[in-house]
């Protein structure tokens, strides 16, 4: 359901399993029979390209059968509840339901009502565990360790499930996390999650090992908490100049999709310190690991 509920050891198991699956994608025949005969249903209540594709590719490389449920054409439009939809999918003998939903807690609520394994592919502002796992996997690959790393998560923290999952995961593995955003985009009492809080980008990224840049979700402007785009770019945008002032060899991550010229400049996004596309590649290995561990073991939820 989320990294909040996973122990340090469980997270490490996923990461090491992912490392062994990563090689599969480099083969000429990119497939292993680990999930042959298993059915994975991608149930996406929110638009998503990269996460859905990544889960689909991951499942296929494990030889699972994959069904994508497009909500626009399904009976949800006819008023079917989340739990009824889930039970129907289960009645098709699906082994794993991968769900993306706009309501925080949706995956947890569904998991209590169905026997199929539920994998949370993002729920509201709550968690996006596989994204955080792939971020952590990428960081570990680049630096060799997580313990003691200094990571700054910068952007719309308040509405970010990626931020929350990263915070749980990174702090459990011993990283030092700072979150940075304009004050209105920092949710109350987030320091109780074990992070430092800053609204000064230059100070926040000073001396860090990595910066995880979140997308400014301007489509969620209902709360008028969002600053002007240009003003945001000026104060919080990750540019080459800002990075070079903060230190050398800072790894730049972004969960995508990126808004060039809003939270990140093109030269940084496409530059040498950026690992954005490697994150996408690693996402497949991490999701293969999660699907494999979930389907392979007892009923377990991630």
């Amino acid at each position, binding site marked *: 359901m989320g990294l909040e509920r996973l122990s340090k050891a469980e997270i490490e198991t996923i990461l090491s399993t992912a490392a062994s699956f990563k090689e599969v994608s480099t083969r000429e025949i990119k497939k292993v029979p680990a999930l042959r005969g298993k059915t994975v249903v991608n149930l996406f209540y929110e638009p998503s390209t990269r996460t859905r594709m990544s889960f689909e590719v991951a499942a296929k490389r494990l030889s699972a059968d994959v069904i994508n449920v497009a909500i626009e054409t399904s009976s949800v439009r006819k008023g079917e*509840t989340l*739990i009824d939809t889930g039970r129907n999918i289960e009645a098709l003998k699906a082994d794993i339901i991968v769900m993306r*939903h706009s*309501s*925080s*807690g949706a995956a947890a*609520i569904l998991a209590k009502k169905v026997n199929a394994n539920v994998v949370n592919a993002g729920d509201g502002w709550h968690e996006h565990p596989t994204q955080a796992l792939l971020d952590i996997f990428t960081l570990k690959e680049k630096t060799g360790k997580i313990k003691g790393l200094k990571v700054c998560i910068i952007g719309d923290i308040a509405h970010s499930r990626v931020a929350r999952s990263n915070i749980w995961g990174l702090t459990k593995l011993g990283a030092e996390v700072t979150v940075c955003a304009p004050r209105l985009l920092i949710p*109350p*009492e987030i320091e*109780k999650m074990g992070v430092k809080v800053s609204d000064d980008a230059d100070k926040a990224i000073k001396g860090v090992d990595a910066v995880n840049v979140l997308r400014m979700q301007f489509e969620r402007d209902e709360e008028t908490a969002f600053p002007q785009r240009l003003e945001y770019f000026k104060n919080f945008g990750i540019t080459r100049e800002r990075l070079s002032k903060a230190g050398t060899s800072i790894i730049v991550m972004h969960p995508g999709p990126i808004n060039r010229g809003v939270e990140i400049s093109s030269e940084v996004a496409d530059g040498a310190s950026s690992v954005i596309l490697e994150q996408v590649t690693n996402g497949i290995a991490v999701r293969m690991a999660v699907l494999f561990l979930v389907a392979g073991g007892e009923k377990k939820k991630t």
Partner: protein
Amino acid sequence: MRVLVKNSRIIDASQNLDKIGDIFIESGKIKNVGKNISPNADKIIEASGKIAIPGLVDMHVHLREPGREDKETIESGTLAAAKGGITSVLAMPNTEPAIDCIDSVERVKEIIKKNAKVNVFIAAAITKNRAGREVTEVKKLKNHGVLAVTDDGSSVDDTDIMHRALCAAAKEKILVICHCEDKKLSALGQVNKGFTSTRMGLRGISKESEYNRIKRDIDLAAKTGSRIHIAHVSCRESVEIIAKAKKRGIPVTAETAPHYFSFDESEIWGFDTNKKMNPPLRCADDVLSLKQALAEGVIDAVASDHAPHTENEKDVEFDKAAFGVTGLETELSACIKLVEEGLLDWLQLTRLIAYNPASILGINKGSLRPGSDADIVLVDADKKWRVTRDGFVSKSKNSCFIGKTLRGVVECTILNGQIIYKNESIPG
């Protein structure tokens, strides 16, 4: 009919009584309480080892009838009350339609007469259709037996209209029950604002949304002299504001509900919609403050805020799920826990769950004094029970105590001298 309840430990706040003895009931009234009173009785209830307390008076109950009989009816709700040792309830007016005129009051009275298993008293809306725009006819409502007026479920947002309502209530000397919530601050909120809303990724309901409105209503009470009662107090700041107002002599009383002193916000981190209510579960420090307020008498009463909802309304995404939990069948056990913890003694407990709410409502209940209505509960205070979904009598199962083990079982509920509920295990 003469009934003798023998050898129980009798506890009654109204007489400061805590001793083992007998209760003699004649024609539905308590005739005598004492030791070895052995008048000729038609029926003897042997109750040694049990505690006898006045039937509970629950001044905050949603019976949902008329309009939402799928959630609860006056019959099912009062059966649940009897099982919980509650012999008097105050029914909230947020039914469909709202109880906001004498016609609707009379209609509800008819259903009560026909179907109620315990005493049901009526609260009526303070504004028409609970819309917060036009004050109801308070005088007429009172003349038709309404005990209090309230828009419970909402607060009257317009201060001028609330002022007018309190003026009318002051003139008629009728109690105003205040649901204190500033919707501008709590809008779309789901859980306590702060660490809980942040970690769950949900919008928060701030404490300010509650205590700012309590402040306003207390100011209006001071200005108008109207008697007000603050419903479902959930946090420390509210307690402090109420304590101060009482010291200044403002006519304010207050209640809290068992869930607010039984659980803190961490209980909801698993997204269990049966723990979603408004106001929400607050911090551990607020729980502590509520307990102190109960012990010190700053909070006058415990009321269940029994809010039944169907499973269809709860088995949905967290932010779509209805607010509210049931409480009639777990209230007494949740309160007994406070005695177990040493926070209250039994006398204080009966004051909070029976005597005080009866006094606030001005009804001849909540006491075992000779002459009172013989509403009595016999409790096995040590016996433990596990709360299960299927164990409820209420039509709805949305309890936040499901899965918990509680202490204190109602063995027998007596209403006007008649046994209306008996736990299977009690002989006779």
